[in-house]
């Protein structure tokens, strides 16, 4: 016997002598979408998901294949070409006071920005999820200790800590230094969120039934509680990518970031502020790219949030 029972909806005909007709046969064998499938279906319907995704793809192409966009080396600066205006031959967006190509610097600046943003977010999310899960699931003394640890790191004034740290690590090359320092301070918000989610999830029936089936404490924590609590973290982490990119630019602006002549949006903004009045374009373009990148991750995170938790919006 097959188990393909199909429930059918019947519609009464207009004329009594006609047979009833079936419409909309319900296929019960169809696979259910599940939590992630439904979230993905909602995401696909949201127009605000496609706009940032398109821009993100452009950014990623710029990270991996910058030479597609420009043939000019961002660190090659000819002083004879200093301060060319937008649209100058060979320089689409003009040149800086040092004679570097503005467009090329924007393209190559995507690499450190996205490296830092994405790696710091992944590291922060990794440690945040583990610490939050352990604290929320284990409870008791371990939770008390981990929660105090979170509070200690949150209460430190972050910008100050970054600057002090960067002063200490002056000799270390830019990108690694920034990734390390940001990651040290980048896990607390995720840990807090995860802890709250885990505390809400750990007493649900599926966890109890896993226990009844003999699954170990550790297994329950990582196989059942963690996957069921992690969804909101994904949206927050996506938004964080933009925040770290902005922070990198701010730190580079203060002169403590990547340094040297390396292409960095923050450095370009910092250099352009001196000539804001005579060459506003030099300041405008790196600012624009920074805002668009930040907006991309915020919109993406917002779309993910809506897809994961559609009730929150309404």
């Amino acid at each position, binding site marked *: 016997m097959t188990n393909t029972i199909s429930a059918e909806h019947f519609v009464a005909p207009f004329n009594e002598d006609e047979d009833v007709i079936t419409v909309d046969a319900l296929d019960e064998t169809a696979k259910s979408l599940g939590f992630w499938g439904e979230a993905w279906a909602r995401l696909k319907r949201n127009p605000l998901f496609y706009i940032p995704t398109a821009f993100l793809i452009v950014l990623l192409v710029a990270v991996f294949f910058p030479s597609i966009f420009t043939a000019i080396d961002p660190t090659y600066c000819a002083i004879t070409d200093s301060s060319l205006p937008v649209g100058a031959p060979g320089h689409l967006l003009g040149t800086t006071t040092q004679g570097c190509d503005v467009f090329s610097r924007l393209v190559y600046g995507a690499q450190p920005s996205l490296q830092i943003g994405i790696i710091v977010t992944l590291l922060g999310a990794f440690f945040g999820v583990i610490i939050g899960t352990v604290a929320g699931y284990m409870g008791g003394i371990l939770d008390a200790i981990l929660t*105090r*640890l979170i*509070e*200690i*790191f949150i*209460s*430190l*004034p972050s*910008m*100050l*800590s970054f*600057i*002090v*740290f960067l*002063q*200490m690590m*002056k000799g270390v090359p830019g990108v690694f230094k920034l990734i390390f320092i940001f990651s040290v301070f980048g896990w607390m918000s995720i840990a*807090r969120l995860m*802890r*709250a989610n885990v*505390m809400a999830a750990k007493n649900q029936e599926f966890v109890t039934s896993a226990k009844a089936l003999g699954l170990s404490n550790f297994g329950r924590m990582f196989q059942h509680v963690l996957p069921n609590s992690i969804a909101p973290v994904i949206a927050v982490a996506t938004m964080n990518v*933009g925040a770290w990119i*902005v922070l990198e*630019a*701010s730190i580079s*602006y*203060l002169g403590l970031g990547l340094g040297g002549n390396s292409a960095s949006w*923050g450095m370009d*903004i910092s250099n352009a*502020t001196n000539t*804001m*009045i005579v060459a*506003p374009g030099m*300041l405008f373009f790196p*600012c624009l790219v*920074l*805002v668009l990148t*930040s*907006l991309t991750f*915020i*919109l993406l995170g*917002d779309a993910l949030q809506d897809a994961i938790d559609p009730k*929150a919006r*309404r």
Partner: protein
Amino acid sequence: MLNYVLKRILQAIPVFIGSTLLIYALVFLMPGDPVRALFGDKPVSEATLTIIRTQYHLNEPFIIQYLYFLKGLFTFDLGVTFAGREIIDVIASVFPNTLMLGTLAFVFEVIIGVGLGIFVGLKRGSFADSFTMVSSLVLVSIPPLVLGYALQFLFGIQLKVLPVTVGTHMDFLHLLMPSFVLATVSIATIIRLTRASISDVRGADFVRTARAKGISEGLVIRRHIFRNSMIPVITYLGIDLVALFSGAILTEQIFNIQGVGNTLYKYILIGEAPAVVTIATLFLILYIVSNIVIDCLYAALDPRIRYGKEVA
């Protein structure tokens, strides 16, 4: 309630020790010899250096130095900078500037953030609502760095209606742009928080009851919806106010304001460890204490917090 207050205070002690120790370690492990740097290129005898080091307890082990620092803190003796200035004088000269900037930014946050939040919270689903939600996302994605220069360029250089930087002119007109820039960091969060809270309460049973009793809509909004939805908003604003008063390095740097943030930044760059540690610790204490006060206030206003286990 008393139990809750005591619990919060006890919990704050390890946080205080841990975070001050961390700041202290970070700052004092900065490279360079600040005492030798005091003399520049001039020759100086080892004996003189030793005297100065003893004066600042720099030749003691790290943990003893930290204990001396705590002792100074608890006896209200904040010490002197390496350059010989009383740290309390430094704070007295720059804190008022940060206070003015922060207060004005706070006013922006309340008027724009809470005001818009209430407005769209009451009109959920309308065009104004969607428009505010999207534009708050756009606003939050403009970093202070960019917004600061954009406003300077537009209002200061092109339109010439507002002064470009602040310098020593600490007045309303000069602080308008920087305080708005500072406020935008949290405005979007405040709008969203207020909106969510308002529309939560709007659907509550007691609001329906109030309407059923025939109370006018204005009164329902003022007495029932507004009062009950402001608790989380006030909590957030309280913590944010402390953050605003702790100085904003970036905003103060862009607009050249001689506030706490700018001073700390300058001191870090020249290795003025005592001043950095002391000022940072004072604001840390302010942060921890105000957190306890706000938590207790929250618990007093909303008894569910106390009886539930612990708010995450």
